[in-house]
């Protein structure tokens, strides 16, 4: 069974103006799956729709064998789906500890067991629990955003461009964290602009173009795929592909 399965999703911010126009993705258990595509393709809209933040006009989203198409956003973590948005993904006005604790308290997580695991995963954060999160550096913010999402032990973790705005060294650190997270059995779906790094990290990937999944396959195949090359390097997209 697939960990996450979207069938023919149509989604958008306003009725009659779909941004995602019939996208389908199937993500296997404990794999890292990348969603690639040019600017404005609807990648963010797709993951937001899956997370319940953007209305789904048609199609279905299955999490394991549960239909979560109509589940409101605040119930998603209870179902086992966590999402880290691209920007503003931490509560800058709360402490690091409160950022992590809040979801745990709401979901009645056994904190005595789970918080040490999170501390092990993000030792950098463990040392700064009392700090107001707004004072963290860019890389630490991204880690806090992941920690906040992971504390409820989701089955599937979705991230929107976790490498955006980070130096190559920090991107490496964040991606290493994601590998560790996957090693604990969590399925990871990430949207990435950074095609090379994403394909190096992911097991499989899909390329979304104009709201539809154009090509899907193992990362190794996509690296050498001519169509990807055309999409990213051919039509003046070289700058964004980095």
């Amino acid at each position: 069974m697939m960990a996450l399965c979207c069938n023919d999703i149509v989604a958008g911010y306003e009725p009659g103006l779909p941004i995602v126009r019939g996208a389908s993705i199937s993500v296997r258990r404990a794999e890292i799956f990348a969603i690639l595509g040019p600017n404005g393709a609807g990648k963010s809209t797709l993951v937001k729709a899956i997370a319940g933040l953007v209305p789904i006009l048609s199609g279905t989203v299955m999490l394991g064998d549960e239909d979560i198409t109509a589940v409101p956003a605040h119930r998603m973590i209870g179902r086992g789906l966590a999402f880290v948005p691209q920007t503003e993904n931490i509560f800058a006005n709360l402490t690091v500890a409160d950022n992590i604790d809040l979801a745990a308290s709401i979901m009645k997580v056994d904190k005595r067991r789970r918080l040490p695991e999170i501390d092990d995963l993000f030792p950098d954060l463990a040392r700064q629990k009392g700090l107001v999160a707004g004072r963290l550096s860019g890389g630490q913010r991204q880690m806090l955003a992941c920690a906040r999402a992971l504390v409820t032990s989701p089955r599937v973790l979705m991230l929107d461009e976790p490498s955006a705005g980070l130096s190559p060294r920090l991107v490496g650190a964040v991606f290493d964290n994601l590998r560790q997270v996957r090693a604990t059995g969590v399925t990871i779906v990430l949207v990435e602009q950074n095609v090379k790094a994403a394909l190096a990290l992911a097991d499989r990937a899909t390329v979304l173009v104009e709201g539809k999944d154009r090509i899907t396959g193992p990362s190794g195949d996509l690296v050498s795929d001519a169509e990807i090359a055309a999409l990213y390097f051919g039509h003046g997209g070289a700058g964004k592909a980095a």
Partner: protein
Amino acid sequence: MLQLIADGLIVGSVISLGAIGVTMTYSILRFANFAHGELLTWGAYLTLTVLGFVVALGGAGPMQPIGPFSFGWPLLAALAAAAVMTALLALLVDWLLFERLRAHGTAIVLVIASFGAALAMRNLLQFIYGTLPDYYSREIQIAIRLVPRDVMGGMRITPDQLFVLALTAVTVVLLHLFLTYTTLGKAMRATAHNPALARLTGIDVRAVIRAAWVIGAVLAAIAGVFSGLTVQIRPGLGFDLLLPLFAAAILGGIGSVYGAVAGGLIVGLAESLSVPLFGAEYRAATAFLVLIAILLVRPTGLFGERN
């Protein structure tokens, strides 16, 4: 001088409690609720009504004062009941009006709707209670001299005024503890900062909105009763305080609870200290001069987030 400061702090307490509600609805619902003043008025009048029942049921004639205060336990019981009723009123108005507009309307639609709600609430109140002023108690209060007359003009304060100051302080401390240490309090701060992320964190934003209305309305009822206790109960009680409430909330940095408290005290002090300078008619204008002066120096208000 000292006397003016004491008077200013008492008015400031009422403004602070009201401004907390304004700033809270603003930070969570993202609109300036001009009907908030009416919650103060309704709180004051509902307390008066419940007080009538409590005293009648007690059958002991007029309310027996506690110690030096002008009021007795019946008033406190009535305030507690009226605070609950005011909270229900706020939830009702939200359900009837704001919730429907939130789904589609922009902030300005909500603001204008809140003007309408204010008018409706005030007219309904006048229809029920009439327009004459009223009092919780006819007891005459003897002011206590705290500072002799030869020290900076001296200071006299009534026991009721001391009670208002003390209970305001207690309320603000309790609210601080609630927002800092409870899950609901943290969820409210999280929602104020970023509603979408709050939902992703498992927070039911509708529950947070209800909590904001309840807290705002309870504090409004307390402020309304304090105003009724230290001045008088009038249908215009809340409306007349509306501009000071907003001045206080903006001065403190809209969205900041502590800013609202600080802003309320500053506005109260500014109004009171301006009386000997410009006369009582211009006290409201002084609050705005202070507001403008502070915003020129700190455009986000005293405790406002910069970004």
